[in-house]
């Protein structure tokens, strides 16, 4: 339960922060979730929350468009396919989210 609450908290916080701040605001969102909504799997929740957020958003944008830009970018970045590009996107976001959440969960609550 705690896990789920933390995951949703990070997801919402990061999504809101991304409206106003650059990409690294996902770290702030995850950090907030890591500090205020601790679980026993802080890294994993941080990772999953941001990975999920980025994956869903990227896939949503992709379905709205008929252009082949995603394939072109995948090819420019030398990843095999569109699918791999989605996964790389999720992975990179996830890593930042995971470590940010883990970091603040290690601060002692007074």
């Amino acid at each position, binding site marked *: 339960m705690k896990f789920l609450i933390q995951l949703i908290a990070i997801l919402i916080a990061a999504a809101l922060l991304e409206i106003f701040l650059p990409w690294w605001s996902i770290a702030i969102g995850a950090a907030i979730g890591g500090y205020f909504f601790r679980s026993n799997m802080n890294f994993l929740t941080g990772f999953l929350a941001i990975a999920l957020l*980025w994956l869903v958003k990227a896939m949503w944008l992709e379905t709205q468009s008929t*252009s082949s830009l995603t394939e072109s970018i995948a090819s420019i970045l030398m990843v095999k396919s569109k699918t791999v590009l989605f996964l790389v996107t999720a992975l*990179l976001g996830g890593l930042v989210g995971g*470590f940010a959440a883990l970091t603040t969960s290690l601060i002692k609550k007074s």
Partner: protein
Amino acid sequence: MRIIKFLISLSITLVLIWALDKSWEVNQTRIPPLGKFLDPFHGFWQNLEPTHYQFPENLDIPGLQQPVTIIFDSLMIPHIFAQNDADLYLAQGYVTAMHRLWQMEFQTHAAAGRISEIIGPGKDDAVLNYDRSQRRLGMVYAADNALRLMIKRPEARLVVNSYTDGINAYIRSLNYRSLPVEYKLMDYSPENWTPLKCALLLKSMAQTLNMGDKDMQMTNALKLFGPDLVNLLYPDREPVADPIVEKPNAWDFEPVKLDSVPSALPDELIKISGLTIPDPTIGSNNWAVAGSKTQSGSPILCNDPHLNTTLPSIWYAIQLNAPGINSMGASLPGAPGVISGFNDSIAWGVTNAQRDLVDWYAIHFDNLKMNRFLLDGEWIDTRKIIEKIDIRGKEPFFDTVTYTYWGPVVYDHSYRSENNRKYYAFRWIAHDESEELMTFYELNRARNHSDYMKALDHFSSPAQNFVFASVSGDIAMRIQGKFPVRRKNEGKFVLDGSKLSNGWQYFIPFEHNVMVKNPERGFVSSANQYPADETYPYYIQATSYEAYRNRRINNLLREANQVTVQDMMRLQNDNYSIRAEESLPLLLSHLDSASLNEVERFAFKTLQSWDYTFTGTSEAPSYYEAWWTNLMPLIWDEMRRDDLSLSTPTSWNTINLMKNHPDLVFYDLQSSPEKESLKDIINLAFKQGVEEVEKWKSSADGTNRTPQWAEYKDTFVEHLTRIEPLGIHVKHGGHGSAVNASSRKHGPSWRMVVSLEKTGPKIYATYPGGQSGNPGSVHYSDMLERWSKGQYFNLMFLHKPEDAGQKLFSTMNLKPKKK
């Protein structure tokens, strides 16, 4: 313990963010900042434009005086309705930037020699050397001179300033999320637009069109081969073309004559290797047919300028409407107005007027400091400009460019110094003050032939063949530009820069330029061929003149009657090659058909039954092309040297020489001890060509391909960055020697057919790309398919916004921003 874990985890987080927020260079390739770039809220995913993307309906624009309405049609062509000129051009700047900002900036950076700033010095400093050559050719100097005159005219000043304001209003509205994807990929941001950039863009077009220059190559040829052979290999005028204007003995004016004596021809070798000239088959077509020859009784005007087919497209279609103007057509992103188009009363179009407008002067300096040079016995001071070239990731490079009376010294001991410390200054018509923008400003508003003539009087460079037709029934052609009066052979070779009399002393008065109105034959046309019949009283010379398209167009137009718009579309897409007709029988007659193997015999048979038409689905053109492209280097192997540059004779003259000089020394191969005859190398080229096609057949992932021409030619519309995945391969017939002059990366960059009917002009057009410069938009290349099939779009030309009706795609209202 916990604190250590905390510190480690914190460090990893911060390092990750840092590393993903910056771009990295790995093996000379720049990787975008991955976190920033892949973030779906701000990164490249945001450049995926929804298929039914709607613009913001209302926008507040600072600097606007009155509201402006912009209607976008289904092709995303903007139709701008403004209440005054200032607002009209501001809106043009705004929408053009909205679709093409990255391209506009990149092209002007390239013109100004600023590419190292974006992508670094390149492999073996190739990019830096490109930048240096642009600086040394005086591109910014040329643009400065153009701008100086431009802003003296109140209309032109208003136009460029408003256009600039519009672009900058758009740039100010951007953030990382909304940046064009190329900026994100290469990790940089746009700078403010300036009127100078408009001038730079026009100069960059002049560079594309004027730099077919071979003075140094010709100088070397003169020294190595002597004057007789030079005249045989590179005649001033090939006795073939159907000139643009024929008025034998009817040029009723007294030509300007130079009384000074020309200097002796140079006697030197210029040891600069690798000088190239653009593909001589490039060019453009335009023509107009009088109402007497058309089915509707109204004139029809056609234009297809051939340029590099790149993405984002070179052209941007637009309609401009304000009091005094209702004009539509192709614009150049970065230059205000319409360049090739029409209005309610007239239509016009352009092709390049081939003429030598570039000269090189050998300079004698007093010493290596290059502070003074000799001119008519006196030492004259030079002017130095220090060019600072910023290089991404490195210290800036400083280059000193010396300006003489003639122009900038391009080659000296610090640039291409292999030439024994000889110095050459560069004289180019585009260095002079000019006001091309006024021409287009007035053409866009012209009502009749006399308005067109007045508009053209502002035009000095790059010289163009301006075709004209009006609703009132006139057709005309005028070759307009500033042309120096030359003595025979002058400008063909490098000139002695120590004599003032070698300069451009007079220009041909505009009223002596080649022009014609309503000729008896009922049509006018141009295709980069020789401008006038032999009785035209001025000496004319250029790198090369087109020999085939012009004859094909004129042959068909001469015969044609009851011409329809569809006939004209067919003519623009005509793939018949007179070059093939005039060369293939000759080649086949030399072929030793008894000694052919199986595939060679197949190729031989295919070629024997060919109709000389470069149809996308036939195989013969592939064999012909492979044969020809192998033959040319075999004949002209003498012209390829590592130590200096020489120029290859034209295709037409090569065929002419093969027919009439079967014993020319050049047929012998330099690389072999035997003596080859013409027959030998024609057979050798055939075998090499067939082998090339055979190799091509089996090259694609194991499957055996049929060498259909469109597949073999493989037209590739390349992205300006040359990033392969952003380009598009398309199947399209055509050939440089056919009216549809489509080669692999070059071809009709805009096809327009305008029927000037009394009830209003009817317009059909297409181009190889689309209105949007965004590779994530459906409008990036939505016109490409029809272009490749030779089909057209029926363009919507409006008189008021309400006329759009159902065809309306989206409307945008620009409103003055309250202070």
